[in-house]
């Protein structure tokens, strides 16, 4: 009989191995799926995982991977701090939107003035916007003990309404023939987050790398990082050692909000270019997957973000080159998370084969 036996401590080895195995199992199961759809599975898998990196047009796709990964990594890094401490910010999508609105608002207000100060101001506004939006669930939790999962999630929908209102009203392009959507910030030299649009590099990528490094230092070298980990792993011990839960909650939610806000600001001033009704495409939610796929570890998150970006971009290529339906690609991405969670059993449990005993 197969039995699951709880490990005394989660296995370190398995926690590193499971993401790799999950990717391999996803490739196999995905290959079967593609074969069932009548496509060559090897070609499909190669299109998704190989072509964007080493294919004929890799010079275009490699920077695109960073374009896609940067917001995911930036948001996931922030989320991972809270997740480690058991503080669940599910509303990064909303903080991403508000950060973008605040950043874009500053940029649009200065249009058409050119100055080197505009972009830094937008960065500050974007970060503050996301921070403030995350402070709502933070303060409510600290003050009234509300559930931050619900409040932060609900605020996503509020942020979406705010976004629609801005795209249709206050921030609407006065030269847009009545169509919703703001001016295009990527055409506005002082406000764009592009470093070089031709190569496909923007400041959000630099910010994501800096965030990875800072998070690593914080978690490994700083007392605050120790407190975060302690609160998650041993809440009672954390209390005894004098961790103030309220401050920790505000710090974790505030940081993740600010990083999500920054991600939104870099996106709206670069790749997306304008405040439009459907500006947000779910990075705030996908980042939750990235955070867990990366084991809540800064370097892991960086790799997971790149992997996620690869499935997106490779998936798009598979769609247009091989004629795979969009839904098949989504199923494929879903499989990745499913197998990761399923294989997580191995980190916490040992599989034991035991002989059937008769009493």
């Amino acid at each position, binding site marked *: 009989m197969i039995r699951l036996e709880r490990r005394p401590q989660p296995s370190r080895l398995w926690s590193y191995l499971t993401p790799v195995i999950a990717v391999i199992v996803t490739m196999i199961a995905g290959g079967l799926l593609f074969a069932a759809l009548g496509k060559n599975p090897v070609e499909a898998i190669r299109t998704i995982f190989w072509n964007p990196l080493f294919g004929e047009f890799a010079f275009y796709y490699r920077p695109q991977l960073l*374009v896609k990964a940067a917001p995911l990594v930036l948001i996931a890094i922030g989320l991972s701090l809270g997740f480690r401490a058991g503080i669940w910010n599910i509303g990064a999508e909303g903080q991403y939107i508000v950060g973008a609105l605040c950043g874009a608002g500053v940029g649009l207000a200065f249009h058409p003035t050119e100055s080197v100060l505009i972009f830094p101001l937008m960065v500050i506004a974007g970060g503050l916007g996301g921070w403030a939006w995350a402070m709502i669930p933070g303060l409510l939790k600290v003050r009234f003990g509300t559930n931050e999962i619900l409040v932060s999630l609900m605020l996503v929908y509020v942020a979406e309404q705010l976004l629609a209102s801005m795209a249709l009203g206050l921030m609407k392009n006065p030269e847009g*023939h009545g*169509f919703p959507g703001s001016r295009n910030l990527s055409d506005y030299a002082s406000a764009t987050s592009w470093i070089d649009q031709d*190569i496909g590099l923007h400041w959000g990528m630099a910010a994501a790398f800096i965030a990875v490094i800072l998070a690593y230092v914080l978690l490994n070298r700083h007392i605050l990082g120790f407190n975060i980990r302690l609160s998650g792993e041993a809440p009672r011990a954390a209390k005894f050692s004098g961790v103030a839960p309220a401050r920790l909650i505000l710090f974790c939610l505030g940081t993740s909000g600010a990083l999500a806000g920054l991600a939104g600001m870099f996106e709206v001033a670069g*790749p997306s270019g304008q405040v439009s009704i*459907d500006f947000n495409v779910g990075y705030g939610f996908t980042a939750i997957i990235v955070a867990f796929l990366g084991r809540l570890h800064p370097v892991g998150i960086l790799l997971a973000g790149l992997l996620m970006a690869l499935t997106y971009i490779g998936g*798009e290529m598979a769609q247009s080159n091989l004629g795979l*339906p969009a839904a098949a690609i989504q199923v494929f991405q879903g499989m990745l998370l499913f197998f990761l969670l399923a294989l997580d059993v191995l980190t916490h449990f040992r599989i034991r084969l035991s002989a059937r005993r008769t009493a």
Partner: protein
Amino acid sequence: MRLSKILTGATLALGLATGAAAQDKTKVGFIYVGPIGDGGWTYEHDKGRLAVEEHFGDQVETVYQESVPEGADAERAITQMALQGADLIFTTSFGYMDPTINVAKKFPDVKFEHATGYKQAENVSTYSARFYEGRAVQGHIAGQMTDSNIVGYIGSYPIPEVIRGINSAFIHARKVNPDVEFKIVWAYTWFDPAKEADAASVLIEQGADVILQHTDSTAPLAAAENAGDVIGFGQASDMAEYKPSPRVSSIIDNWAPYYIDRVQAVIDGTWESQDIWHGIDEGMVGIGEITDAVPDDIKASALELKDSIASGDYHPFTGPINKQDGSAWLAEGEVADDGTLLGMDFYVEGIEGKIPE
């Protein structure tokens, strides 16, 4: 522009490398906002693509990508098609406007066709259909079919195209029924069956017995069917599976002739940038069969209206028409110009509520 050099270099290299077999094939790409099975907007564009394949056979190869979000991701999807050697790319939703223009700058040798936008370039054409002509016929039927005098309208986004449709339907509903009211719900999506069904249910609860939709799925018709005694219209596609009721007629977008025409132009080397706005007359807008659920006299007058629009005898926006605030827009007998229609951002007199801001 360094990238543009690299990219044109790459496309050139690709053209040379793929050899003679690929050279005589014209590659045509399509970017879709919804899934090809949406039964509405994207479904009709894909029918156009299949018509191109059928018409040209081995001469062309078509590729498509469905459910492409409007925004940053669209630019990559379009670039990808251009990189893969597409000669002509149709981007079939309004939100692809800036991405299309951006990509077109980098690929001067590739032709682009953007649906429903207003930005053209040397290698970017725009095309759209005068859906408001169909809306006039719809309003004419809706105004007479309603018993509650409440017509529900599911808007997608408050852009000129949608507002124009609401105005056209309303004007013609009021003409045949001075007591009719429009209730408008904005769904903020082109395709989301769950949201569309919700919107339809809300409107039905508020007393609407006719549902008009500017979203692409069949969910509102399904909601109408469930409610009973409520009728609706096929949107973008015939949606014939809901005949004879709740679907009593439909507006059909017929892109096939235009697509075949444009692909032919690329093959012949005669393609030029243009701005096309075709209606019932040219066949880009079709009125689907009016079913027996509609009394004969209403059906006859609806078809009469359709014919007079097609022949050019009648324009759906003919004065006297006032704006919502009561100010004069069109004088007696005056006909709206295309510029105003294309940028329409106001309701006509009689419509309740405000355009969202």
